[in-house]
């Protein structure tokens, strides 16, 4: 009997509380800090060049083998030529971020990546750079 009354008052109080569910495409919540989304290549803001030097540590650390890097020899130094990432394979584990010694790669908060075509999930160097807005957690409330 006591349990019934307790349940009744909990249900009654819930009528005046804010619903927990959101109507996804129209309403969105702020995603949690530290959430792992699409990887992003960082830029050096002084020179506006990609920080990555193509050392291939992230390629070695990736458990899904979704990263492939090509180096180029330029001006007496090795530099990054191609950086390909297959998002269809990526599990967003973050191993590449941990493996990078010069902090050239990080995970953005972008997670809406549904595509009809598998080829569209294959990101190149420039695709991974153009994601500055997805570093802000509440970008979707705008």
């Amino acid at each position, binding site marked *: 009997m006591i349990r*019934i009354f307790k349940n*009744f008052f909990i249900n009654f109080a819930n009528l005046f509380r804010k619903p*927990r569910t959101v*109507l996804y495409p*129209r309403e969105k919540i702020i995603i949690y800090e530290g959430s792992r989304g699409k990887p992003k290549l960082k830029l050096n803001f002084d020179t506006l060049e990609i920080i990555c030097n193509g050392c291939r540590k992230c390629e070695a650390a990736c458990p899904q083998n979704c990263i492939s890097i090509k180096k180029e020899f330029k001006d007496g130094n090795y530099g990054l030529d191609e950086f390909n990432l297959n998002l269809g394979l990526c599990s967003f584990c973050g191993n590449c971020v941990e493996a990078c010694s010069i902090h050239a790669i990080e995970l953005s908060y972008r997670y809406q990546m549904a595509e009809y075509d598998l080829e569209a999930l294959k990101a190149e160097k420039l695709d991974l750079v153009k994601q500055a807005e997805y570093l802000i957690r509440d970008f979707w409330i705008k």
Partner: protein
Amino acid sequence: MLVLLQKIGYIILILGVNLYIVSFLNNKIVSRSELRRGYKGYKKGGAVFPFSSSLKYIAKGTPFSIWDIFIFVFSIVLWSVVPISYNYYIIDSSHNLFFALVLYIMLVIFKVFSVSYSKYYFVISSFVKRISQTLSLLIPLLFSVLAIIILNKSLDFKIIVNSQYQVWNIVYQPIGFAVFFISILLQIKLMNLSEYNQFLITDNINKEGEGISRLTSRFSNYLIIFFLISLLNILYLGGWQKLYMISGNIMVAIKFYAVFAIVALLERSISGISSISRLINLNYKLLLPLSIVNLAITIVFFILRNVYFII
């Protein structure tokens, strides 16, 4: 004849509007008590959703059982004797309460029969279980109604309501009200208001989108729920008596929706009482003794008042 047709039209209109409001209210209450939003966020708060959800049943047809048709027809016929408000009834008789109860008992029997039929044969064990379950709910309800009849010395709804112009019957019959309320709450739970447990529902309508038989079953279930709440309203809560400046019709609506909201919330809260045996135990050990005590007290008061003129 025209007046009669007009009355029938009004009653059907009121029942239709009520059906819409109640199905909307029920969905909202059930969902908000679970911290959900209820109907999908269509424009105007999902106001059109009850229509669209009823339309989806028509998409696929299933054969009716004879009991489903009986239930559907009788749940509509029931409203010819039960007044929604003052003057909103078709058959004006001084024994309306008796007719309404007889029709309701017939409906319950049809429901038990419809549940007891499997797709191909009649299941006796299921029938016996359901009969004992429904009797355990019906007998206390009838006893508490009998107490009201003794109190008001009438079987006419109008006289019962008019006798409450000063004090509602709930004051004289608190135990009877409690028994009646618990009984109708459990009956409504059996009729599956929130579509969770399925005791008094036939096998062929449990599946999603099973066609028009589900729609009619849902419709008749709602009409029976309206009847039970209206009966509670008339017998215990003063019916269409006006309160200060508020007119009778508005009072009926306020009381109806308030009781419905409480029932919908309580129906969610008593999810623990789900097995048939537990329910029968509860009814025979709690409801039946209480209703007998209530009836005995009422009879004693009746004798002291009308035979010995003591009170």
